[in-house]
């Protein structure tokens, strides 16, 4: 593998990223980090969970992303009375054919927006998360493969926790990243105001095809990940499990369980995708550090002691990143 050649190829192939970012920025002001994470998840073939207070354009960002790609998009509003069949599909009796026929659910799309995922009961969440993991859905006796690319973009808001069903740790682990969205700054807020009250609303035109995405995914797989970076990633993940071995003994009492091997895999995949987005054919520690928080924050269990001291998983990840030596 020639790194110069790969870099050149990536330069060409990743051009659509800027175009996509531009299209999305027509309707989404600011939130560059969120948009970048959405593209990374798309390229790394991972699902993403967005968390933020209402009104931060989570749903709009996902809708905009889907619109930039000429792909099937469906939105499921999770409610307490939602049933698994409402997500995956069901068998319907056809009087004309005198037989049961399959009625596919909204999960059969390239982009599935699971809005307020924590409002539906566990059985519905499980149905969706199973589809996320297996990339296939079984209805009746028939199993259907889901289309490529298949990306679940779930949202949840940290407020109004009453009557919600928080995602279990095992299911949270299936999301490649959990992105926390904050309020825009003052300038961005003004820009939002202008765009929203403008006489003519901006429209998004599809600029990428599914084929482009699949090809980009193939190139992402070629991004070089050096052994030094592999060590760096495993060190970060191991530090969440055995903090005392990395001179972080004070974190031991705060962590109830560390990140899983899935975290290691996702950190490597997301780092590669980020290197691609930044037009590089190799991963540098900067990529790992940049994506680490979003990959790790939902994979670390906190103890009661940590909760009592109001310590969040973000604080632990920050502590680990600052402690582990950069290669």
């Amino acid at each position, binding site marked *: 593998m020639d*790194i110069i050649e790969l870099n050149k190829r990536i330069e060409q192939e990743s051009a659509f990223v800027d175009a996509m970012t531009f299209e999305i920025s027509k309707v989404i002001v600011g939130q560059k980090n969120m948009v970048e994470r959405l593209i990374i998840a798309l390229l790394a073939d991972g699902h993403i969970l967005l968390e933020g207070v209402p009104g931060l354009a989570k749903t709009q960002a996902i809708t905009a992303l889907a619109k930039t790609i000429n792909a099937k998009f469906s939105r499921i509003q999770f409610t307490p009375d939602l049933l698994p069949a409402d997500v995956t599909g069901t068998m319907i009796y056809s009087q004309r054919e005198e037989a049961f026929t399959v009625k596919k659910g909204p999960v059969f799309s390239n982009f599935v927006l699971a809005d307020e995922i924590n409002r539906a009961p566990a059985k519905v969440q499980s149905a969706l998360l199973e589809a996320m993991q297996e990339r296939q859905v079984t209805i009746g006796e028939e199993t259907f493969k889901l289309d490529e690319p298949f990306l679940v973009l779930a949202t949840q808001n940290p407020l109004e926790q009453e009557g919600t069903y928080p995602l279990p740790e095992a299911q949270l682990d299936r999301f490649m990243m959990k992105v926390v969205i904050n309020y825009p700054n003052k300038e961005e807020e003004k820009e939002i105001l202008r765009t929203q009250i403008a006489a003519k609303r901006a429209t998004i035109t599809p600029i990428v095809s599914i084929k482009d995405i699949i090809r980009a995914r193939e190139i992402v797989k070629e991004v*070089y990940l*050096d052994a030094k970076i592999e060590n760096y990633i495993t060190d970060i993940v191991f530090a969440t499990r055995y903090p005392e071995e990395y001179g972080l003994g004070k974190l031991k009492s705060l962590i109830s369980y560390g990140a899983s091997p899935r975290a290691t895999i996702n950190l490597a995949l997301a780092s590669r995708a980020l290197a691609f987005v930044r037009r590089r054919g190799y*991963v540098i*520690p900067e990529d790992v550090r940049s994506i680490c928080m979003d990959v790790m924050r939902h994979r670390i269990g906190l103890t009661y002691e940590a909760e009592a001291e109001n310590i969040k998983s973000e604080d632990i990840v920050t502590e680990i990143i600052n402690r582990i*030596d*950069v290669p």
Partner: protein
Amino acid sequence: MKIKNLIIVVLLAIFSINITIGQTVIGVADKKSYNIGDRIEFSFKIPFDAKVSQTLIVGKSNSDSLELHTTIIDTIRENNKDYLHYKQYYTSFVSGTKNLGEGVAVKIGDSADKIFEITPMRIEILEYPIDTTKIEIKDIKTVLEEKFTFKEILPIIYVLLAILIIIIGICMLIRYIKKKRQNIETPEVVKVEPKISPHIKALQSLEDLRKKKLSERKLQKQYYTELTEIIWIYLEERFGICASEMTSSEILSQVKANSSISQKDYKILDDVFFMSDLVKFAKYETDQIIDKNLLTLTQQFVINTKEEIESNEPNK
């Protein structure tokens, strides 16, 4: 006349003596001999006439040897004659021969014309016979053991503690004096490590790296790893940038923010880090000319940003 009177007085006296001298009555004791402390019963009877009163006269109720407790009087009839039966109860506390009823008399009537005197009876008061050979001889009891309470021991503990503290104090004082003497005798030599300026250390390390000839041996990855480590250490010691915990871009942003580093020096560092990242993380193969140039550039960066530190080496 005088003689006549004297004769009359003498006659009268003799006559009166005849009148007062009465009858004697024999008193009887219940036993002849008693032990010390025994009750002694002494009784006698006097003819009784209901019309004439009788008065019991006891010369001595208590003597050194006999003590009269009570006298019980009762009437009895013997041979168609009435008597007053007197019973006296004594106790003796002194051994020896005693006269029981001595000084006891009974006066009949109001006038002292008739008196019954009681004839004393001799009795023997014996001591208790004690045979010490047959009595069990018991050992003298030992002193009872009574346990001490903590309150009783507390003062002792205080005293012991005080003694202990005093001993420790004395020991420490002796030790201190000894140490002081030793210190006076042999003054401690404080070795002062010569402080080496970060740039001297960095330049020395760069020279060592050149001598290793890693580039010539096609060990570029190791060469650039060591090169970046030298720069990290220099930046940390010279500018306080914790470079070993930062990524290249983080280091560069810190360097850029430092006003003492010129744009030209920043560019040098940017080039070195870019190439190092390429070699370290992307298997990029450089040639010896590039390697040498970057080493020279790094030396240039160190020289441009150096700061002299006053040497604290002792004067020789």
